[in-house]
């Protein structure tokens, strides 16, 4: 039996607030502990969403990016007070190496968070979210999304019929391919525009844009969403407070700031960890519930 991920059953606003704060905080906090937390929780969430095999595949493809960024910083930047060795009379400093690693961690975490975002925030959620604020633009995005598979089918039909006339897009010289590609595009455009006008007239006939028309939305904001959103917002404000009081600030140049492990710092670190790990906890909790329910059948 397959179960859709627990996260997907939440209201789009809850998910959007979570991912927006996650990604912005990750871009914002350069503190090594914060970066480590972000990297670990994004990896865990992605692993939970796609499974271990796909996670390893993603990590394998992200690793070279990590190395590239981590190496390129000390090569380009010679700031810092602790030179380790020299290349062409340019000092390679400890600070720039550490900063490179921190930056690479940040970029990779953001990539992982966006990967999770793409999995959870499907296009219908995206449209629901913006349908009330920007109804026309949300409608335009939704129509465009619908048109693409339609056009794909039409491309197939057109190229099949062109094949019977002796036009092949996948053989011949580059110039011939471009020419037959453009011929298909031209046929497609005439069809798509006429079809689009038909749709528009049909929309108008059904009263699009008249007063009192509402937009349909399948998502309902219930009590459970409210509770989760409240917890997320609370954790977000605690973390902003931590930043205001300087618990999450850090510097790498000219020398690396000393790490401090006071109770307050650890409390703020924990609140950050709690915020980022939250969706993973929800997923695991639902997983356990699902398993226990299945075992009872």
């Amino acid at each position, binding site marked *: 039996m397959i179960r859709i991920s627990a996260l997907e059953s939440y209201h789009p606003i809850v998910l959007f607030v979570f991912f927006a704060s996650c990604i912005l905080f990750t871009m914002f906090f350069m503190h090594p502990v914060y970066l480590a937390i972000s990297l670990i929780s994004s990896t865990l969430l992605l692993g939970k969403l796609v499974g271990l095999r796909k996670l390893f595949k993603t990590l394998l493809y992200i690793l070279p990016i990590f190395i590239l960024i981590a190496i390129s910083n000390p090569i380009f930047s010679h700031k810092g007070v602790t030179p380790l060795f020299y290349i062409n009379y340019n000092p390679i400093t400890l600070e720039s190496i550490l900063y490179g690693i921190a930056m690479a961690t940040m970029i990779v975490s953001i990539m992982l968070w966006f990967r999770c975002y793409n999995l959870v925030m499907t296009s219908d959620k*995206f449209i629901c979210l913006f349908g009330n604020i920007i109804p026309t633009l949300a409608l335009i995005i939704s129509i465009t999304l619908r048109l693409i598979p339609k056009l794909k089918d039409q491309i197939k039909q057109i190229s099949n019929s062109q094949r019977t006339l002796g036009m092949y897009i996948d053989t011949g010289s580059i110039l011939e391919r471009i020419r037959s590609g453009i011929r298909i*595009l031209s046929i497609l455009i005439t069809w798509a525009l006429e079809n689009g006008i038909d749709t*528009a007239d049909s929309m108008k006939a059904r009263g699009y844009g008249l007063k009192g028309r509402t937009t349909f939305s399948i998502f309902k904001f219930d009590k459970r969403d409210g509770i989760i959103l409240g917890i997320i917002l609370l954790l977000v404000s605690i973390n902003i407070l931590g930043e205001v009081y300087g618990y999450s600030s850090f510097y790498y140049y000219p020398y690396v700031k000393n790490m401090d492990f006071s109770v307050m710092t650890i409390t703020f670190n924990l609140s950050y960890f709690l915020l980022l790990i939250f969706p993973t906890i929800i997923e695991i909790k639902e997983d356990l519930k699902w398993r226990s329910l299945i075992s009872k059948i």
Partner: protein
Amino acid sequence: MSTKLKIRTSMKNITISITTVLLIIPIVILVGVKLLNDRKYNLISFIIAFLACIPFLARFENRRPQPREILCISVMSALSVAGRLIFVMLPGFKPVTAITAITGIAFGPEAGFLTGALSAIVSNIYYGQGPWTPFQMLSWGILGFIAGVLAKFNLMENKVVLTLYGIFSGILFSLMMDIWFVLSIDGLFTWKRYYIAIIGAIPFTIVYCVSNVVFLLLLSKPIGEKLERIKLKYGLMQD
């Protein structure tokens, strides 16, 4: 739409544009410089690129456009995304800029901007959203807008101008994406790194330029005629 309402919406549009461009963007830069010690270029530029699109989008939203207009812009964006699928066997060859420009030429600067920005959002829903989305929205949007403005002066009928525009747009798109690349390395912007990124991206820039010029020269007349015909037949976009 009555004249009074028209004046009111246009005033509202101007207010939104002015507040975004003159107020919010400087505030974001100021916050970046003061609070973040001038170090968070990547976050700030990500936000600014997004904010820069807002005046255009808000203007369109407030105008309450007719379904035919909505459909025309959707169709053109869907075509530019689907166009990538037709030419998938020629890597780097993307008709997105050309189709955006042609829409701008036929339907005006605003439609050009929307088609470009929309193509960026929608194609990234397919290929994955990322911090680069606002940069692509802004680059393609501005390119469509420029094409529309040039067409107002009847310049785009000239093959030489069209070719120059194709090269210019390839370079501009590449330069914008290089900014994003430099910022993604360590959040700081240095000219030295930017030059290196530009030099490293030259092969891509050339492919962009060549594909833009090829598509513009080959497509602008046939597609332009089709759009003009639709405009005439259904009385679209006549303001």
